């Protein structure tokens, strides 16, 4: 086959695929962060730990209950989301009147606790998680080999992202949510239970992270620290995109994943840092972020 810009197409498309996979996770995680920030005004530093917990719940289910991937896809977000709701009720709700920084510090502390506990129990090495049998194998597309599971991850996370966008931007529930983001007091005066909405929103954002964790389990190993560095990259994604727009989070997430994948092909040394470099450029050109509104 003909090399493109001196790169064999298999390598190019292979990295592009990995980029899209990473992009799916960036999109799901930054979407969750944006939804939570919109209503709670808290940057959820625990998000990376909750992503890791999602993967671990999937692993537990397979290991101890014999429940496979499809069950995990349903149960893990519910379990982690429920824990998130508990967290919001017990701790986060005490911080709403305070400076936003306290929310960041509290959730940072929680992330340390969760990651520390899992590391004590499981060490720093990863636990393998087998692919579901239905999604094993792959398709030969002529120009590249497409593993079925990876195609599924991209398709499914895109579906979830668009469904979230649809619910928030196009339904009555979403309208309440957006109204409460703008002015919670007024929305409450109209008889809508805003505290309950806040709790459920946090639970939903967290379950998105857990869902991403389940999807990541067969690709990466299930590791107590799998979310620790990822969350920092997701923060950069959020700074680049701005948290004002749902669609913006999705586009930025996938876009940056692709750029990262391409960097791995053309200049591998910079693949770790390319997202941060883009963040610097965006801050210089458009300080409010690509989709952000100036405050």
């Amino acid at each position, binding site marked *: 086959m003909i090399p493109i810009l001196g790169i064999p197409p298999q390598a190019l498309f292979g990295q592009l695929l990995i980029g899209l996979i990473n992009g799916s996770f960036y999109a799901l995680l930054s979407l969750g962060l944006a939804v939570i920030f919109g209503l709670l005004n808290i940057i959820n530093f625990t998000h990376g730990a909750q992503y890791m917990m999602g993967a671990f719940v999937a692993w537990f289910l397979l290991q101890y209950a014999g429940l496979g991937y499809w069950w995990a896809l349903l149960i893990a977000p519910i379990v982690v989301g429920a824990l998130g709701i508990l967290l919001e009720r017990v701790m986060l709700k005490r911080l709403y009147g305070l400076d936003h920084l306290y929310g960041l510090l509290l959730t940072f502390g929680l992330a340390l606790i969760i990651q*520390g506990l899992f590391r004590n129990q499981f060490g720093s090495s990863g636990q393998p998680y087998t692919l579901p049998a239905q999604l094993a194998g792959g398709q030969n597309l002529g120009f590249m080999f497409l593993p079925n599971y990876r195609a599924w991850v991209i398709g499914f996370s895109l579906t979830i992202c668009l469904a979230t966008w649809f619910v928030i931007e196009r339904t009555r529930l979403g309208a309440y949510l957006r109204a409460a983001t703008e002015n919670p007091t007024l929305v409450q005066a109209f008889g809508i239970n805003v505290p309950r909405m806040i709790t459920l929103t946090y639970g939903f954002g967290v379950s998105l992270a857990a869902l991403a964790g389940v999807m990541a389990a067969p690709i990466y190993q299930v590791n107590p620290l799998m979310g620790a560095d990822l969350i920092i990259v997701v923060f950069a994604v959020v*700074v680049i995109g701005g948290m004002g727009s749902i669609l913006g989070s999705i586009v930025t997430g996938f876009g940056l994943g692709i750029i990262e994948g391409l960097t791995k092909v053309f200049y591998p040394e910079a693949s770790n*840092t390319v997202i941060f470099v883009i963040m610097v450029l965006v801050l210089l050109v458009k*300080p409010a972020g690509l989709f952000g509104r100036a405050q």
Partner: protein
Amino acid sequence: MEEGASPRLGHQWVAFAVMVTLLVAAPFVVYPVFLMKALCFALFACAFNLLIGYVGLLSFGHATFLGSAGYITAHAAKVWGWGPATAILAGAAAAGVLGLAVGVLAIRRQGIYFAMTTLALAQMIYFFCLQAPFTHGEDGIQAVPRGRLFGLLDLNHTLTLYFVVLAVFLAGFLIIYRAIHSPFGQVLKAIRENEPRAISLGYKADQYKLIAFVVSTLLAGVAGGTKALVFQLASLTDVHWTMSGEVVLMTLLGGLGTVFGPVVGAFLVITLENYLAQLGAWVTVVQGAIFVVCVLTFRRGVVGELARLIRKPL
């Protein structure tokens, strides 16, 4: 508000005298290397507190400045054969330049975004340190020579080194104290309390923030350079985000926006880590738990609560 008239700050000088007395006597009772570690972190935490306590900026990537100054100091002392004073100054200068670059970028965003931006930039610099040849990756720069200060004081002598570190710490502490209680510091507090109002009064808030940021990173650099000489090592630990979290913890536990809080916090956290060192990942769990408890019930910190008790700022 309460710090307008200087005669009322007499008790702070009493507290300062107590601190100096304790620190001068300490090495004869406690293991000096442990104390030097705590002093380096105390200066680091004071520098960090200048931002969060007095300007309201949460820099979540402050390890960058500690760690990169450590690398530059270690490199200057070991490879270029510079003396300890110039090596530390070189490290601090490098941290200051880096601080200027990070500050210019991060100050473009407010509040929570500022924290995320500094964290992300710090992670970028971490990856740079991981890959750059002169940092020696996972090994770090080892066996850094301490040398002789001004050609006179042999820093390989532990007590001599201790008093040099103490002098460096006190100098940094007094610089921050001076800055906080100067008109410059008052403007910083005005920006923290109400930025639009400060701007409407004609203060260029972003410039003030940037100056405070650079001062803070310079002093964090001094702490990092000194630490590299004390341990004769510059490693990736000091640029990692966990270190950034640790300095937040020290300051929070001691008391945000108090003069002595970061010092107390640094000593408490370092002591704790010393005792928990053999417990592995439990250290992280305990640190996280302290974060949670502090944020939920103890937001003033140790010194903040003390100050409330005696009804005077500390």
